[in-house]
């Protein structure tokens, strides 16, 4: 009962933070420098790991599909299978999970330490709302950068699949036919679908991580606990949201 209450409480405080941050949208142009900095952290520095991971996810997808589909002569459909899975599901979810682990944890750690060492209090007394200075640029940066990461993940995953399809002996599908099948069975809506999902996940992850960071109380030990909690909550939310967004977009 008490736990349920605390879940609702954090849900409410997250929404409140969102509304607060939203009310300062007009100040975004002035916070350009902070926005760029966050874009750099959320987007640019996350790119390498996103690229590496999506390449191998695409490869493994092609490999597994080739292995299981060779039995009934559907190998030529690997392109569409990898394409659709990457664009609609794995690309967005993988980007969101990496974001939670790499960016979300950093956000929570930073905000939690600012809170614990009273920097947040200092901001409040200076009449600089943390929602405006600390949360809004991060949310905006997430909105701007996550789709970029997702589309890169999609494309890198597709190429990973194409390379495996060509060079693995028991698959041996030329990239031309791989991409022809991919194109034939996909419309841009599938990719857009994935981008919307990634966008939602990224936004929620950053928002939740900001909220958990700003609500940290105590000392260094609590900072660590807050980071763990932020990542766990983010991962759960990603997968729960994934179901509902997928269903809503169908």
């Amino acid at each position, binding site marked *: 009962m008490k736990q349920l209450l605390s879940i609702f409480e954090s849900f409410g405080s997250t929404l409140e933070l969102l509304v607060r941050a939203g009310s300062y949208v007009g100040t975004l142009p002035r916070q350009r*420098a902070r926005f*760029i*900095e966050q*874009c*750099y952290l959320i*987007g*640019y520095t996350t*790119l390498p790991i996103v690229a590496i991971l999506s390449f191998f996810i695409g490869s493994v997808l092609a490999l597994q599909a080739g292995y299981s589909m060779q039995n009934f002569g559907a190998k030529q459909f690997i392109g569409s299978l990898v394409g659709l899975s990457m664009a609609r599901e794995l690309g967005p979810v993988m980007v969101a999970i990496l974001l939670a682990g790499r960016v979300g944890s950093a956000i929570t750690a930073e905000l939690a330490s600012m809170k614990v060492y009273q920097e947040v209090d200092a901001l409040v007394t200076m009449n600089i709302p943390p929602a405006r200075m600390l949360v809004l640029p991060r949310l905006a940066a997430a909105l*701007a*950068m996550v*789709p*970029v*990461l997702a*589309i*890169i993940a*999609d*494309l890198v995953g597709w190429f990973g699949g194409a390379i495996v399809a060509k060079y693995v002996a028991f698959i041996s599908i030329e990239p031309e036919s791989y991409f022809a099948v991919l*194109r*034939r069975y*996909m*419309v*841009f809506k*599938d*990719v857009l679908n994935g*981008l919307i999902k990634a966008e939602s996940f990224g936004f929620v992850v950053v928002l939740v991580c900001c909220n958990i960071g700003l609500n940290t109380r105590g000392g260094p030990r609590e900072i660590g606990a807050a980071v763990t909690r932020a990542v766990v909550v983010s991962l759960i939310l990603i997968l729960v949201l994934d179901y509902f967004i997928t269903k809503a977009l169908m």
Partner: protein
Amino acid sequence: MQNSQQTARVGLFFILGLALTWVTFETLSGGRVFKNKGYTLIAGFESLKELKEGDDVRMAGVKVGVVEKTRLAGRRAEAILRIEGDTKIPSDATASIVMAGLIGTNYIGVDLGSAGVPPLAPGSEIRTKVTPDINAIMTELGNLGQKLEGALGAFGNSMNGDGRNPGLFQKLDRLVTENGERVNTTMTNLQEITTKLNRGEGTLGKLVNDPALHDELVAAVGEIKTTATQARVFVTDAQGLLAQVKTGKGPLGTLVYDEAAANDLKATVANLRQVSDKLAKGEGTLGKLINDDSLFTSAQSTLRKADRAIDGLDDSGPITAVGIVAKSLF
């Protein structure tokens, strides 16, 4: 400065994202970014089958646009075609849904129409025609096979008979066999008479001296004459028959002077060629599909039957009998 470098990287990164999104969009949706480029036409169909948005519109095989939208309009399905560039579609051009592959890739094929016809105005409707889809073709192929089987069966019946009614070959056979016996008898008689005549040369004077015998001789000569006339009539008959057989040398169709049967055979062969052409075209998946079909087996057995019938024409008795008659007479 660190800051401007960061800004540049973020900017570059964002532009990269936009570019990749655009490229993906272009590739997957046939580039509807240029929404204002070109113009649209409406093509109404009973069914769009497997056509989907982003499929090509090709005029005489050349891509001229994409299917921009598919929608249901009242009692029919409509495809909105975006014709890119300034390609003019003549107003009498006909659009149809064409299959590019067996696994469901379709495009809208537009024929060239006629020269000198005013082009379709943007937003107007293009004429359409229904093309059979893969299912229809398979069904048709099945029907064709059945027809073929029927035709080959009829052909076999007309050649060999079906038990109750004698076939063409039987008739021919019987005709020649019966006449041959008569010819043989007549020939034997004729030979006997001539032999008697030859042998009677010695006794002919006796016969001439003897008036009674003379009368008898005259009567005998009259008899010979009659017989000779009879023989000539028969030989004319045989000649006529032989001429007909002789003109029948060459293609199988004309060998059989029954014109209807020949036409039947011709049509059947034409059908056969059509089918085999289709089979040849359908090499691959279709070939496999047909491999498993009993249709193919039955077609083969029918062909084998036809083969056998033709073999029968070559070395069965009747022809030989006619040959013997012809040789022994001339």
